[in-house]
């Protein structure tokens, strides 16, 4: 099962390496990872997408808790949440391909953020599934480059992960 684990981490050097190292040492998966400081500069917020059975996920959260720099964490996928990922796609867009790519971007509510004589760069935000679907939809065009941010997530309602 896919899980989105959100972590508040001390914003100290080595903390991220320790967290990522834990996954490598214990053979856990990281499907995507995003990290940046929060409004409190001493804390980083990290969102990690992983998969495994219940026992593995339980071990992952317990082992993460043991890291001294981990302040708090939650498994977002256990309750209602919002998840978003940003993607930039550079696509070959020449001749009649130009209209085709534009239409496809419009359907997915993507924006063309850069243009050259033969390319479009499309920005798309949404769930990982939606981003996957967009790439599928572009299969008739030549994709030159894909950059994805990894998932960021937050709980719905009044539930927060904060100090």
């Amino acid at each position: 099962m896919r899980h989105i684990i959100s972590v508040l981490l001390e914003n100290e050097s080595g903390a991220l390496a320790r967290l990522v190292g834990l996954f490598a040492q214990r053979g856990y998966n990281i499907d995507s990872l995003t990290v940046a400081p929060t409004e409190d500069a001493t804390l980083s917020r990290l969102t990690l997408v992983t998969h495994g059975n219940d026992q593995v996920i339980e071990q992952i959260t317990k082992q993460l808790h043991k890291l001294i720099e981990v302040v708090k964490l939650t498994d977002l996928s256990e309750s209602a949440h919002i998840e978003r990922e940003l993607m930039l796609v550079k696509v070959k867009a020449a001749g009649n391909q130009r209209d085709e790519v534009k239409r496809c971007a419009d359907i997915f509510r993507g924006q063309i953020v850069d243009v050259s004589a033969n390319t479009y760069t499309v920005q798309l935000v949404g769930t990982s599934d939606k981003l996957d679907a967009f790439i599928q939809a572009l299969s008739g065009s030549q994709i030159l480059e894909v950059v994805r941010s990894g998932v960021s997530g937050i709980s719905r309602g009044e539930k927060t992960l904060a100090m």
Partner: protein
Amino acid sequence: MTSQSKQAEMLSGAAMVIRALADEGVEYVYGYPGGAVLHIYDALFQQTQVKHVLVRHEQAATHMADAYARATGKAGVVLVTSGPGATNAVTGIATAYMDSIPMVVLTGQVMSHLIGEDAFQETDMLGISRPIVKHNMSVRRPEDIPALIRKAFYIAQSGRPGPVVLDIPKDMTIPSQTFAYDYPSEVKLRSYQPKLKGHSGQIKKAVTALLAAKRPIIYAGGGVIMGRASDELTELAQLLNVPVTNTLMGLGAYPGDDKQFVGMLGMHGSYEANQTMHHADVILAVGARFDDRVTNNTKKFCPDATIIHIDVDPASISKTVNAHIPIVGLVQPVLEEMLGLVKQKKKKLDEAALASWWQQINAWRAVHGGRYDTTTSQIKPQHVIEMVSKITKGNAFVCSDVGQHQMFAAQYYKFNKPNRWINSGGLGTMGFGLPAAMGIKLNFPDDDVVCVTGEGSIQMNIQELSTCKQYGLGVKIINLNNGYLGMVKQWQDMNYESRYASSYMDSLPDFIKLAEAYGHVGIRVTKPEELEPALERAFALKDQLVFLDIHIDPKEHVYPMQIPGGAMNELFLSKTERT
């Protein structure tokens, strides 16, 4: 400047390191000097409170500190230089980590501005040690040193203990640069608050389950030793007349000669311990972690048992075997609370059920699985350990290396007290025994300290015989010499049709001459009748290190031995019998 900071003593980073150790109550630091830590060594030289023990190899320093921690529960302290000094300490750090032993390791580092430039004796010790420490940190500003050292001790010694590495760049310790010294009395970390007391509701549930048991057993591990809970464990077990088994790490948590003790469990555990576990209906697991050397095949593990698991580390609970009643907390207060409830309830276990359970256990005991042949003319390693146990009355500190001799020591020495069986259980570090015995002897000079080893393990840190001479460490070395890497040979006998790939050591040194060359006493024992007088003589030489080179039966195997892939009670009982 405030008036307070005006009064504060001004110290260099190097002096602060040593002063902080003194304020922490540290008596000995084990280490080896080198370029990056010379300022710190100079500060050590200029005071008398903290004493330094100079080893011959950094690995030995870590094992000495580790053994001190195993015996006292307090963090041992290591001081080594950068680069090779730090990397030589890695095996010892990993050893402590695997057995949850508190240790503070101060590693030198090249000057801050040289970090990342591949400077002389530079190595990324934070990166190297990260997977084998509870935590590691580096000094960024000299004035942070007291707080970082306090934090290192706090993290190492609290919760589930473990080693902490503090990396100190040389420019943090420059003697001419001084800063206000203030040693914090306490540490508070928002991200680290280990749980102390167990959940009362869970404890009640556990007591109810235990009192309803018909075939109970207590399975106690190293957590009882490090958690100082053997008194509570013993009282609870005896109050309820429940059998007790200890893990390799838990030996001594319950008195080894008591009738309720069924012996060690697991791969080389006793027949009765493994049978009792397998057939139990309630298992009270205390400070143990259901590791693979205990459970054998987890799918076949104790099929009828309701498992109560007390552990300070939530990650240890339901990691390999699912716990039905988990209790997260320090084992001592949890057991105390359980005891209180049991006494209050005045309820005992079903007497008839318990009586028939004991009858069954005693029948298993009578099978004598794993007993050794006493009719040969060769010295049996088991007999040596029994003799040592008798002469020292089960009260010695027994520091073991790793291999067959370790298992014989675990099986045949009757440990009556906790914190006296000092061995590398998790990592299985050959070379651990002698430095461990040294660390114990230094701190407990009036006690008998035995190093049980083999001709393989002892040579991994044999250079420490020199350190023993320098500090007058009268350790008794029991070298169970069979000419082979015994445990490797046993596996080759059992699984590789006795093809002894690199398990025979040709050209062994004359250990007697070697001991004498280092200024010690050596005694060779080749016949069974020589054994007792030799041991008597060795223990009578109180202050002398005695190296007993005991030539044992090279064909001996360790039994019982769990059959791979089987349930925990599926055992080889001898070379010809199995369950």
